């Protein structure tokens, strides 16, 4: 579901723990519109990192709703009263239809059940001012690069970055690169091509040769569960330590025990998926390591040890006021951290408040 639904929907949980009543039977006085209560000036419109953490907190504390207890209500009843069903349909019809398809419940008559989930990772490939990566001639546009989203990726920013990079930057920088360089025809006999081909072939042969017992999907889920549990919305040293012992183990086991059927000379979706999951494992481990390294809370990265009394993110600007890139040194090798200090000359970073 899109965050935009919080423009008009109201988020609430029952005031009583473990309340299993139908939401219709819970009177106003027994509902906790917790975002409106905790953030009177922003209410349901707090940024997504805050809204996500508060929802997780409600569920962790036993106020979750639905069969799984891993959800909070997002209620359109007041919006429909205020604007009319037609206006709500005009604004959110596609999203509400999507919800109805997935759950079989009608969000126009019963509150939606929502829970925050990862669908984007802040950061991306390092690029220079012209959006060129460390590989000359390889430009990285849109959300694949790291440039625009730091602490908090805001709504519709996939469009924002796609349009900004595509309209304003790439037409100038890519054409400038093409105009100011000479290019010779590249043959597939080139050493670089052969090396790349050999390395891909070696990976494929290795994967096909394992013939183990567990499917790619099983490893994907197992690894993903560890990421979800310990490297998700709220992290702590203990959990990250655990993740950093579990993740390499799963990755090592994957390379010894994964089972891919079929062969490498036909369309093979399992083989393709295996390579994607292998990449996910490398990146997942890096994310866990980075989260362990950054001993502060900042935007989307929340370390439970570093929070204010009110449960908000507590930065450590003395130590961590930098942007960083991890340099890939090859499979199984330790990545190297490169830092670039953030120097705020005129506007100094302060503590956000949505109260």
């Amino acid at each position, binding site marked *: 579901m899109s965050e935009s639904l919080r423009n008009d929907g109201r988020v609430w949980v029952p005031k009583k723990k473990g309340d299993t009543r139908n939401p219709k039977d819970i009177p106003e006085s027994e509902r906790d519109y917790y975002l409106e209560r905790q953030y009177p000036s922003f209410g349901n419109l707090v940024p997504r990192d805050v809204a996500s953490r508060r929802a997780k907190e409600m569920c962790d504390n036993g106020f979750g709703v639905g069969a799984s207890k891993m959800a909070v209500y997002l209620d359109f009843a007041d919006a429909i009263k205020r604007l009319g069903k037609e206006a709500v349909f005009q604004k959110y019809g596609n999203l509400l*239809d*999507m919800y109805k*398809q*997935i*759950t*079989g419940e009608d969000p126009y008559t019963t509150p939606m059940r929502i829970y925050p989930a990862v669908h984007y990772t802040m950061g991306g490939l390092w690029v220079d001012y012209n959006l060129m990566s460390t590989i000359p001639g390889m430009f990285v546009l849109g959300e694949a690069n790291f440039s625009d989203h730091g602490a908090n990726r805001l709504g519709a920013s996939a469009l924002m970055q796609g349009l900004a990079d*595509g*309209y*304003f930057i790439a*037409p*100038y920088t890519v054409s400038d690169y093409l105009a100011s360089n000479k290019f010779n025809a590249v043959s597939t006999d080139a050493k670089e091509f052969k090396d790349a081909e050999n390395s891909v072939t070696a990976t494929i042969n290795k994967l096909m040769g394992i013939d183990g017992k567990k*499917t*790619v*999907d*099983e490893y994907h889920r197992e690894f993903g569960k560890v990421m979800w549990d310990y490297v998700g919305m709220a992290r702590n040293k203990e959990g990250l330590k655990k993740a950093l012992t579990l993740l390499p183990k799963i990755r090592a086991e994957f390379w010894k025990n994964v*089972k*891919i*059927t*079929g062969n490498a000379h*036909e*369309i093979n*979706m*399992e083989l393709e998926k295996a390579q994607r999951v292998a990449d996910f494992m490398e990146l997942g481990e890096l994310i866990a390591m980075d989260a362990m390294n950054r001993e502060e809370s900042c935007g989307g990265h929340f370390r439970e040890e570093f929070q204010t009394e009110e449960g908000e993110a507590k930065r450590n600007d003395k130590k961590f006021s930098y942007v960083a890139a991890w340099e890939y040194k090859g499979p199984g090798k330790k990545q190297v951290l490169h830092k670039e200090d953030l120097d705020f000359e005129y506007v100094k970073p302060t503590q956000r408040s949505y109260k």
Partner: protein
Amino acid sequence: MKIHLKVWRQKDQNDGGRFVDYTASNVSPDMSFLEMLDIVNIDLVKKGETPIAFDHDCREGICGSCGMMINGRAHGPGRGIATCQLHMRSFQDGDSVVIEPWRAAAFPVLKDLMIDRTSFDRIMQAGGYTSAKTGGIPDGNAILIPKPVADEAFDAAACIGCGACVAACPNSSAMLFVSAKVSQLALLPQGQAERTTRVQRMIAQMDEEKFGACSNTYACEAECPKQISVTHIARLNREFIAAQF
């Protein structure tokens, strides 16, 4: 739930293909149709067999890559949904379900339920774009577009290019797809510069790809996951005729 499946298996483009029976056990009504197939595939891999190949990506009805004939209907029962949005609660325990790829000369089967849809890409390359220069673009409100026109262009732009219209059509016509793409740009100021050449080129490419003609059965509209209206086909025809003079 237990579901009996009859799935089209075809090794590659040269293989004749055949139906194979499978049983999906422990199916939850909350699963999507693709999640049910995932389970079948995990079992197949465990048994050392080749899993059923099908296209999928976003799994939320936006990317248009999943698409299969389910009991003879493009994207299965239900209106306005792609296969990934179909949930198992639409079926009963013990049901038999026949799954086939899209069938059309312009969509050759690559493997099992996967088809080659590059004919759509070639139609788009023929004219489904505007070649306005990027760079210093005018303010958003410098070109005023009445809301009903913007809405209609948006409805056409909702097309995800899945190919259900072709699969549902007895003539394998791609008119709904092409009309959505032509309509979207014909309605907006940005599309005016190439208005005549666009429709001619896209129709020419559509014919070259061996898509059939439209005989107004409206099967496409009924099965379109984005519920694109056949009135866009009427606009396509008008655009095409107007482009002749």
